[in-house]
């Protein structure tokens, strides 16, 4: 029995977060919802996710820092970023830091679904390939540094 994919949502607009969770759960995904970067990272430490959908502009720990965290600790996890306006700079920057794709609010639901499907396909492909020991070692070292912070 294959488990449905695990998706983590990080979005500081609570109503939007709620709606997304409802919609995605309706599609059959396992959804965890957090309303800020810190809580999101906490969830990431607790369990592994197939996909993370995060807002970029948030107070406190913003989407970029989440991207950096994921790059070091969960390179297998695919990330989608969400922005409030069509800023090509943020989108390019996000992609440079590891995001798979970017969606602008208000996103078309079907586009969202299609993008999520593509991202999950990528995640499945990554899982089937052998895990990279070096990346894991890096992840550990980065964690050590972060703890020392």
């Amino acid at each position, binding site marked *: 029995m294959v488990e449905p994919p695990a998706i983590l949502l990080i979005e500081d607009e609570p109503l*939007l977060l709620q709606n997304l969770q409802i919609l995605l759960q309706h599609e059959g995904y396992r959804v965890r919802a957090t309303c800020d970067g810190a809580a999101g990272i906490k969830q990431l430490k607790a369990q592994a996710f197939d996909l993370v959908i995060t807002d970029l502009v948030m107070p406190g720990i913003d989407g970029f820092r989440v991207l950096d965290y994921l790059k070091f600790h969960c390179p297998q996890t695919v990330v989608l970023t969400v922005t*409030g306006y*069509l800023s*090509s700079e943020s989108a390019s920057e996000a992609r440079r830091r590891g995001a798979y794709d*970017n969606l602008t609010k*208000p996103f*078309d*639901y079907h586009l969202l679904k*299609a993008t999520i499907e*593509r991202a999950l396909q990528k995640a499945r492909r990554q899982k089937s390939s052998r895990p990279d020991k070096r990346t894991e070692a890096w992840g550990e070292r980065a964690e050590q540094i972060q703890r020392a912070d």
Partner: protein
Amino acid sequence: MVTRRDRLGSMFSPINILRNLRKAREYALASLPLRAVRPAQGNLRTKFIVVIVSLEIVLMGVVSVVVERHQRRAILEQTRLRALSLGSSLAALSEGYLLSYNFAKLEQAVERVAVHEGDIIYAIAHLRDGKVAAFSGRNDLQGRLLHDLTSQRALQATAPLLQDIVLEIAGRGYDVAIPMFVPHSSKKWGTMRLGFSLKRAYLAIHQTRQALFLLSLGAIICGTSLAILLATRISKPIGQLVSEVLEITKGSYDHPIQVSARDEIGYLGQAFEQMRQSLELHLNSLSEEKQRLEEANIRLQQTQQQLMLLAARVAHEVNNPLAIIKTTFQIIRVQSLEKDQLQEQLMVVEQEIDRIARIIREIFAFARPNHQDDRTEVNAVLESLKPLLEQNFFKKRIALEMILEPGLPCIRTSSDHLKQVILNMVRNAEDAMPAGGRIVVQTVSKAKGVELSIADTGSGIPEIYRNRLFDPFFTTKEKATERGMGLGLAVSYGIIRGAGGTIEVESEVGKGSTFRVSLPACEA
């Protein structure tokens, strides 16, 4: 099929090429360095002096020669007259003695004359036969005949005769011979002779010459000095003026022009000074204007930046509520799948929300420039949009066909921007086919770039609209509900231009339209 190039294409029309060439030439000429002003080389001065001095020399030369000649003649004439008159006096004095053969008295007379007048070299009394009756200072010659030519000629004279003689010691002189006649007859009784020295005369002539020479020299020197002075007086103020004007051309417009002259040159200087003052005024006002303009420009730029920031914030703030509303309605739709009528109404709401979102996007995107470092793969973007498009078209009975050439290079724009362009053109195609139709999306590689075409089988675009298609706020939609801001194509045009590309439209009313976007590949 009728083709109409867009504004980019018109750059290559012959008129515009000529205009641009002319502008380029003007610009090149204007930017050549100013020909350096050569300093005054005093040619005028030298010329002036040379002319005056030459004139003077010639003048003085002529005058001197004329005067000298005149003087000489006068002196010699005077001397001659004097000599003759002295001879006559001696003759008159000695007349009686000669007639009476009073030799002693003749001797006396002759000696007295010779001694009394310094100019007289000798005085001789000749008898009828030519023998010497008396000779001043030469008593030994008494009774003798003189055989020299001068004496011969003198003795043959029948009227007073003047001869030029040259003596050993005395130099040049006159020999005056006065024939003596018996009173009231033409019988010659004897001759009285005088030797008159021209020493004094020639001395006087020499002195005259000297005086004239010195005078000429003095005059020439004076004249030359005067000429130099005059020339300097003219050229110095000119030189002053020139140097002052050069000062000004160097940039110091507040340096007043002063010329130390009160004549025409001074007047010229005054005129220049007036010009300088007016220049200074104009420059000052110009620089003030420039400053004002610069300040206004800075303010404008600041305003622009503020506007952009405002637009970004507004977009961000509005998009969040929109997203919430949209997803809420999505949830309602999902939860009430059975009730068709409700579904329809909910879809209307969703569409209206899309409309708002579109307007926000268009306003915001219109104010924003492109970013230089973006790269996108066209095919990838099209593939990612395919499911969305297909679903949309299915409802509207539009068939979608995608022909994508593999291996296309990437282009210089962000995927979000490209998505915007594609979605905009697709939406226009949809709007042109309210009763359904066919849309063909094609990508081909073309001359180091990508050509993306979106063709529809819709109503086509009338000729009159084709020039204005890409103008901001231009829309052909009549129904208010269908009208957006009219910014879609304007924004797309801006994005395409920013990526270095072009857009063309082919259209035939009743048959359909094709939009062709050519985008250059981004350099590796």
